[in-house]
């Protein structure tokens, strides 16, 4: 079997289109995710924030907002990747596999689709956080918001790839709970959403530095607040960008590889 398969633009587009249509119809999922983020921002950002004040000249709500956007991105993208379990279970995968298109095209479409829908989610959350007063309106913020959208696409692509890799390895829904407890939540908690890495004890700092989502949140913080952690310094945004991009390459590769080996 040839390892390199031709990519088909039409096939990539159609898989992406399917993801968008399904996302658009699953309004309950979108609403619950947005509502969950609002709870976090309201209870922690406004409630706890009144007590903490803020970090490094940024008030707590503003500090948390990029992390909460990151949460939406993380959960949305991993689950969208993992949804190939459902495609397999409900048979739709066979319809794609028997078509004259390469496995790689299918998976690239899936990843682009998942990244797009998760980013749409992220944009909604960004708007919600803005309305709640997390960001100071300025021309720089406008430019930052556009940069953030690019960052979101970059962040989510890697996590959809991770989801696809997991979905290609696992075979049943029951693993969902495990996935959520042992993969998603740790990645979310360690992403620096609630506190800056600078104030954490060393073991926690190491754990946080191993979390790819940490760099994603860091990147968003640079885009929306124009500042980052002290630990990574003034070039923090560049380091984060590099890690996120590296994670993308790794996960998209792994997802594609594991998917092409997966069973019907």
């Amino acid at each position, binding site marked *: 079997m040839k390892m390199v398969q031709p990519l088909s633009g039409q096939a990539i587009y*159609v898989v992406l289109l399917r993801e968008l249509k399904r996302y658009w*119809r699953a309004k309950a999922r979108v609403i619950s995710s947005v509502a969950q983020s609002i709870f976090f921002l309201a209870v922690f950002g406004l409630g706890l924030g009144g007590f903490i004040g803020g970090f490094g000249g940024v008030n707590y709500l503003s500090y948390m907002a990029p992390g909460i956007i990151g949460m939406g991105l993380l959960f949305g993208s991993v689950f969208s990747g993992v949804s190939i379990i459902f495609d397999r279970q409900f048979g739709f995968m066979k319809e794609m596999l028997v*078509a004259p*298109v390469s496995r790689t095209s299918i998976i690239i479409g899936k990843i682009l689709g998942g990244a797009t829908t998760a980013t749409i989610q992220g944009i909604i959350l960004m708007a919600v956080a803005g309305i709640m007063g997390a960001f100071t309106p300025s021309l720089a913020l406008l430019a930052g918001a556009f940069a953030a959208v690019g960052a979101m696409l970059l962040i989510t692509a890697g996590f959809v790839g991770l989801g696809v890799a997991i979905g290609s390895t696992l075979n049943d829904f029951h693993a969902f709970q495990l996935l959520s407890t042992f993969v998603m939540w740790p990645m979310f908690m360690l992403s620096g959403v609630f506190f800056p890495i600078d104030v954490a004890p060393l073991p926690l700092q190491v754990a946080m530095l191993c979390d790819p989502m940490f760099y994603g949140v860091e990147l968003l913080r640079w885009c929306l607040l124009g500042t980052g952690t002290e630990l990574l310094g003034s070039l923090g945004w560049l380091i984060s960008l590099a890690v996120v991009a590296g994670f993308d390459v790794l996960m998209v590769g792994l997802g594609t590889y594991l998917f092409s080996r997966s069973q019907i």
Partner: protein
Amino acid sequence: MSKVNTIEVKALTKVFDKDVKAVDGISFNVEEGEILGFLGPNGAGKTTTLNMLSTLLRPTSGTATINGHDILTEPDAVRRSIGYVFQDTTLDIDLTGRENLDFHGRLYGLDRNMRQQRIKELLGLVQLTDRADDLVKTYSGGMKRRLEIARGLLHHPKVLFLDEPTLGLDPQTRRSIWEHIQRLNQEKNVTIILTTHYTEEADYLCKRILIIDFGKIVVLDTPDNLKARLKGDVISLLFKNPAAIEKFRPLLESKSWIHRINVVTSGNNYITMSRMIQTAPTMSDNVDMGGNMPEMDSRTIGSNKKLQKSSKQKSKQPVTDESRQFVDETCPKCLNLLVDKGGHRIPEIVKLADEAGVILESVELRKPTLDDVFLSVTGRNIREEKGSVLDMVRRHRIMRQARGQRVRG
């Protein structure tokens, strides 16, 4: 001039792990525009063969050409030439019927105009035009099946694979799907391979039938020729007491005009069906019957115990579905005799039974059906899952392994 072979299969073989041969060196040709039926019990190798022909599975050895393209070297050209309607539904139920078709058209690279035109035409053909914009999750089983068949045709394949197209559908829907398949075949001249374990379906639709068992072709011929192989008539005897079968059988074996004797469980005729229904309500009295039967296997003994237990627990309750199923599995046994000039033999058989003191419940005379053919070439009733316990284990092993196979790139 002879017709073109659209499908040529040469010594196709699939060996799963641990030397399980799911498909064992089969060769056959299918002519353009023909409907060929794969008939065989579960685990016979039908779906595995289709998966190899559709390039989803790589054969262990042997090959095939479809529409002139080799399945090993030109998988993309093969995929363009075929439509495959899988056994389990492969529709996206969160999309509408039209979107499912549109998605398929795009995957196969059809441009917008062509998609719209063909989708309109096919929706009409399978009579789903008014439901086209509803989500597929609101469709009935028959509608989903029709939509899938339409989808399989959208890219104008030369060959259509239908894997158990009417499995689990009610008789009326089944009939309408048959008509659709026939119409497609005639109007579009599509070559069709369908797998089924309904003999009536194969008989009604197929020009030729390939009976496959344990991965090997047992026989390949037209339905009429197959039935003509069994010369004579079939006489089915049903007994008041199933234990009488073993008593009566030796008496029949000495008669030269009887060509073949088969003991049929879960019978395929009207009498046994009606008897099953009658017997069901009184089953709690007859629990010990199973134990008297000489050909019990572990499964029926298991369900027998279950029945005893459940009848103890709720003896005053009306009979449950579970016990009805038990009746289906073990109770009605009849003898099928293949004889010459059947009408003349009935008095003789009745006389024999009288002399032996065996009470006949009914006697039925009929022409051989494909069920009888299947029975005679494989030694088993097609819907009878049991056979020997060993056979059953072997089949399940094959099916389990067939399901977990890695697909081709």
